[in-house]
């Protein structure tokens, strides 16, 4: 069919466009910062490093200092931004579909409060300070908290038979309240100003912790989850129709829903552990893309993931340059950019959750 072919063509062109934009943005991302390094030189250093010296490196201009800044600090950071954007958009898109609720975001299963509790615990009770060991400990505890919360929510909504979306959302809210209370309890009792600042800072999200040691794990989890969900587009589409209609189309959602939620939770947990809470990306990016291309996951899912990556890389760039001397926590920025963007689409397009 002509119309369908045209649709596919547009889709592939936009994927290509996104890829090019993302590569350029990564280049921008490594060039911009407190020490400004010329764009061409940044690209030369990057391509040199990436191709093992075959291309670009060895130019007289590139000093060792620049190389270190780019390779050890900025590049991992930009990559983390990229992966975080991909992962959060993916998790958000999947959560919205899985709980059949357009208000869902990656943190809906109590993951945010679980991770916060883990982080609070680590900062206030466990490992104060800023040593590398403490940072690793923090990530570990945040991940543990996130995944524990998600599993408790799943367990709770599984009581009395089938998991359905209302039970999930309610269980998520209840555990959210409980975990937040625990966090506040710890903070209140500890009465530690420095610690409170650390917790607050952590909750606002940051990509500053990016390093080559933690990146591979994030990359593997994000890419594996992405590939997995790409194979599930038919079931994800059917999931939007609800349990009964899905059965008549030959799919028992109960099983798939659990699998998807577990995978999305682990994905979100890994990201939260590395970046803290970065809000809004996982909610609005899927919404915006749904608003433009509709709910067919064949197009919707990859485009969400690509635009999430792009959005995050640019949020990171702005967070580094928007204030002259300090870096803005990225969680603040994603909401600052995201909310008006969302309002615009909401008002402008007469948005109907993906028509």
């Amino acid at each position, binding site marked *: 069919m002509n119309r369908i072919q045209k649709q596919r063509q547009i889709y592939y062109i936009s994927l290509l466009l996104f890829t090019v934009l993302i590569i350029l943005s990564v280049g921008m991302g490594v060039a911009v910062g407190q020490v400004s390094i010329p764009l061409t030189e940044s690209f030369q250093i990057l391509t040199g490093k990436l191709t093992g010296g075959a291309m670009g490196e060895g130019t007289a201009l590139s000093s060792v200092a620049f190389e270190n800044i780019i390779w050890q600090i900025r590049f991992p950071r930009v990559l983390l931004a990229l992966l975080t954007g991909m992962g959060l958009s993916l998790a958000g898109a999947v959560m919205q*579909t899985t709980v059949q609720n357009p208000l869902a975001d990656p943190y809906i299963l109590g993951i945010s409060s679980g991770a916060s509790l883990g982080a609070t615990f680590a900062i206030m009770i466990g490992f104060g300070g800023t040593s590398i060991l403490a940072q690793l400990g923090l990530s570990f505890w945040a991940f543990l908290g996130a995944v524990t919360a998600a599993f408790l929510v799943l367990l709770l909504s599984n009581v009395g038979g089938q998991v359905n979306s209302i039970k999930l959302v309610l269980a998520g809210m209840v555990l959210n309240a409980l975990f937040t209370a625990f966090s506040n309890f710890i903070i209140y009792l500890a009465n530690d100003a420095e610690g409170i600042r650390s917790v607050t800072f952590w909750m606002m999200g940051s990509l500053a912790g990016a390093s080559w040691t933690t990146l591979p794990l994030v990359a593997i989890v994000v890419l594996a989850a992405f590939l997995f969900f790409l194979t599930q587009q038919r079931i994800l589409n059917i999931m939007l129709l609800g349990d009964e209609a899905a059965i*008549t*189309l030959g799919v028992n959602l109960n099983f798939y829903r659990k699998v998807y939620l577990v995978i999305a939770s682990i994905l979100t947990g890994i990201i939260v552990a590395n970046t803290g809470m970065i809000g809004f990306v996982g909610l609005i990016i899927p919404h915006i893309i749904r608003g433009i291309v*509709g709910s067919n996951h064949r197009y919707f899912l990859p485009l969400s993931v690509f635009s999430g990556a792009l959005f995050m890389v640019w949020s990171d760039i702005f967070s580094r340059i928007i204030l002259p001397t300090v870096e803005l926590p990225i969680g603040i920025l994603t909401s600052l950019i995201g909310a008006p963007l969302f309002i615009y689409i909401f008002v402008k397009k007469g948005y*109907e959750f993906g*028509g």
Partner: protein
Amino acid sequence: MKLTVENVSLSIASKQIIQDISLHVSQNQFVGLIGPNGCGKSTLLKSVYKALEPDTGIITLDDSIVQELSNKALAKKMGVVGQFHQVNFDFSVRQMLLLGRSPHKGLMERDTAKDFAIVEEVIQQMDLEELADRSFLSLSGGEKQRVILGRALVQQPQFLVLDEPTNHLDIKHQLSILNTVKQLPIGALAAMHDLNLAARYTDYLYAMKDGHLIKEGTPDEVLTESTIKELYEVDCQTYTNPVTGKRNIEFL
């Protein structure tokens, strides 16, 4: 394909909903199921399309036992028009119809030209041209119902289950939906509320009350004043419609 329901009972939360139901739909037959609200019609249909598991009894479609078929295998044989059109996310009508191809597709398999051709065929057959590019959420209840029947036809089923298919429809589309179903060369089992339409379109009727079958037979046999009184607790008079030659019911 023929459907046989044998001695099926089902209870939900220890409340007996249907009890010892047996019915039969033979090849090409359009069989109706009538009865008051809450008599267990929907529950019976749900156990036929495997949304509910009966406590006892056996349901077979030709030679295969429905309970033992996978959901996917069943969806290839049986199309369902249910009463669940509540969706929170939007699809275009074409996309909605295309979802009917899902049971025939592997996980990674793409929609082929053949799939699109089947969808277009159903759009023609069901008179959906005007709706095809609209969004499903913007449709009226009756239009949604027609799209759902369209989706069931896209499944290319050999058997059709319909739960009050004419709900929300104006008279033109009530007749058109029933005509469509009637003309299909497959068996169909439909729960129906409109007794006159049931009399006009079905080949055989089962009357259900409080989870039991109380009567079965041709529409003329089942739609008698006494049975209708027993079922719905209303008085009526039945007569042969001089125009259609079918049984008609006038409520008093």
